[in-house]
């Protein structure tokens, strides 16, 4: 299976990267851009067939390593 993990900053946490990207897009003429938040995309190849187990294990990976619970949240998408 494959897992696609999105790790993103909690609301309210300053995102200097997103802000810089947003400003830059405005400067380049993309005036419709009202705001940008930047996060991480982590794609994991898993030797697991069981989706339920995979979901639970990947959540554990997030809690232990992939996300920083003080400032980040995450979500997980699985595919075959």
């Amino acid at each position, binding site marked *: 299976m494959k897992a696609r993990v999105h790790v993103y900053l*909690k609301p*309210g946490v*300053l995102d*200097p990267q997103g802000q810089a990207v947003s400003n830059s897009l405005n400067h380049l003429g993309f005036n419709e851009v009202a705001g940008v938040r930047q996060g991480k995309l982590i794609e994991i190849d898993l030797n697991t067939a069981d989706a339920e187990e995979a979901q639970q294990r990947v959540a554990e990976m997030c809690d232990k390593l992939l996300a920083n619970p*003080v400032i980040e949240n995450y979500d997980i998408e699985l595919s075959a």
Partner: protein
Amino acid sequence: MSEAVNPRYAEGITEEIALDHVTADEYEIILKELGRAPNLVELGIFSVMWSEHCSYKSSRLHLSKFPTKGEKVIYGPGENAGVIDIGDGQAAIFKMESHNHPSYIEPYQGAATGVGGILRDVFTMGARPVALMNALRFGDPKHPKTRQLVAGVTAGIGGYGNCVGVPTVGGETNFDKGYNGNILVNAMAVGLADTDKIFTAAAREPDFPVLYVGAKTGRDGIHGATMASAEFGEGSEENRPTVQVGDPFTEKKLIEACLELMSEDAISSIQDMGAAGLTSSSVEMASSGGLGIELDLDHVPQREENMTAYEMMLSESQERMLIIIKPGREHVAERIFRKWDLDVATIGKTAPHGRLVLRHKGEVVCDLPLDPIGENAPKYDRPWFPAEARGSIDPADLHQPEHLGEVLASLMGSPDMASKRWIWRQYDRHVMADTAASSEDPADAAIVRVHGTNKALAITTDCTPRYCFADPFEGGKQAVAEAWRNLTAVGADPIAITDCLNFGNPERPEIMGQFVGCVEGMAEACKALDFPVVSGNVSLYNETDGVAIPPTPAVGAVGLIPDMSQRMGYGGLKDGQVLLLVGETRGELGASLYLREIEGQEKGASPRVDLAVEKRNGDFVRSAIRAGKVSAVHDLSDGGLACAAADMAMAAGVGVKLAYTGALPVFAWMFGEDQGRYLIAADATDAEALRADAKAADVPMDVVGLAGGRFISINGGHAVDLIRLKQAHEGFMPALMDGEPEARVAE
């Protein structure tokens, strides 16, 4: 404001809410001072202004014992940073500060924002920051959290300092189980300014506009996490990050913009927003100028929606400053801050009335007299008792090591002694093109050239918590003396210090006793060495489950090298030269590294510092350096003579044959940590003249070794190969840090 007849609590405030902000006694003082109950915004303001961090309520009484004046002191404690005269119309501006708790919670951001904060203290005064230092204490290397914390703190310090483009030139790192639950992250910044362009915070005139510049205000790090969410803005609870995120890019722009504005005739006074951001900056500016201040919070640049007055006043968002501008010059500030893509807004004015008045959405939400908030904040004389004196250690009672070379190797590879390359390799030490010596170089202090001149600043941080724990008074003296010695060893004239006093809970008399002992010891050393304290910071309550950290009064010191060509290091040892030991050796092993690492014991009295001897020996060494008679100098500290000799030998790639025929057990002579000592290297032909000079100065000095070969040996035996020493020395940190999972996914 409600005019009810002195109710104990204002509308919406309960006893619980009040006591969440201040103690019961403090609440009574507020009622008395105001003649009415404070509203929530006011309560929040009291709570942060009367916090230990802002009011120094437990420490102020004792801090007044420090000598703070001197011929070279331009501004001592009380300003954002200390300012000393370095001649030719220039000043060095420096301060050290802790970011301990945030770094334990979130090591990367905690350490990063610590660096950001200390930089602001320095450039607020008009200085261009030119150097950063860091003093770090972590728990037991084997503790499961230690690796993560080391990795995160190092990355955070580097991430911020490297990006703003200020070199991180040195520091110190200790490991001790006493820091398992409370690491220490102390950062120091040093800047340079012209003496006639130094800026201070005190407001000067009423009716001057107050400008907010820098980053927008968010709900970062707002105090009172335990409070019910009703007290915060609608739905804001989950939008209230407990840790602040730093933005070094904004800080870099802020430095450039502030320095640019400072070069114009526009600023009346200026203050960074540190802890308790808008509150402490506005209160301090107004009250130190004997004025008042009025702010309209609607004009504060905001990152989040629906922020309340309480949130804005207590936010600890980073990279913000408050400027009182000369009337009519607002447009100059606007032009400059716009150019740098930073927020700038006029948010109020100074006032003659001595009050803090805040308006939000057309209403007065706070109207407080400033004196009780600032000047008259509570000050406690907390009960304390001195630490119990420990007996001295007789080396004859200790077990005699078999192979002294092997002992030396294990000391050189022990956690405190081992090379911290893994850490400082992640710091840009060279940006700004003036670093003459940094962590990688064999020198007892970092050396940073004063830009465009032939002078240099020497900078060091020092503290030996083992000693402070064994004997706070002697330990406090020793921290100052070692800093003075390190500056001396590179050929500098020591000038002044800053400090960061890290202790446990001051409400416990034994902890307060450690604090008082260390402060008094430091003060005595500062007086004897003419080495005043010009700035500093106190961090208390570093304890978890009743276990306090070892007392850790970190000292950051600055000296001046008048002529770069006379700077000294310990790498200049040459084949055939002699090693001379300056100072007396009694083989003091109490609270030593040897005792801890080799015997596994932490006991005994810490070594005594004789300040008159310290001064005499140091002055002699400095004059020998300036006379050009020595090629290498190293102070003796952890691990004593043998470890210092090993440092010199490894740096030069040449061995040393040590020889001792005195009455002490050889291991006590080699590893004793007697104070006030240096090793110097000189040509054999110059040794006699040096000895004559030493004799004339009444300084004990003996030949203790001869350089040559590729081993360190003692009395012809116990040889240990330099390669083996180097492996031990370089091996500890990589073994600790490499090959295992990193803390978190790296940014």
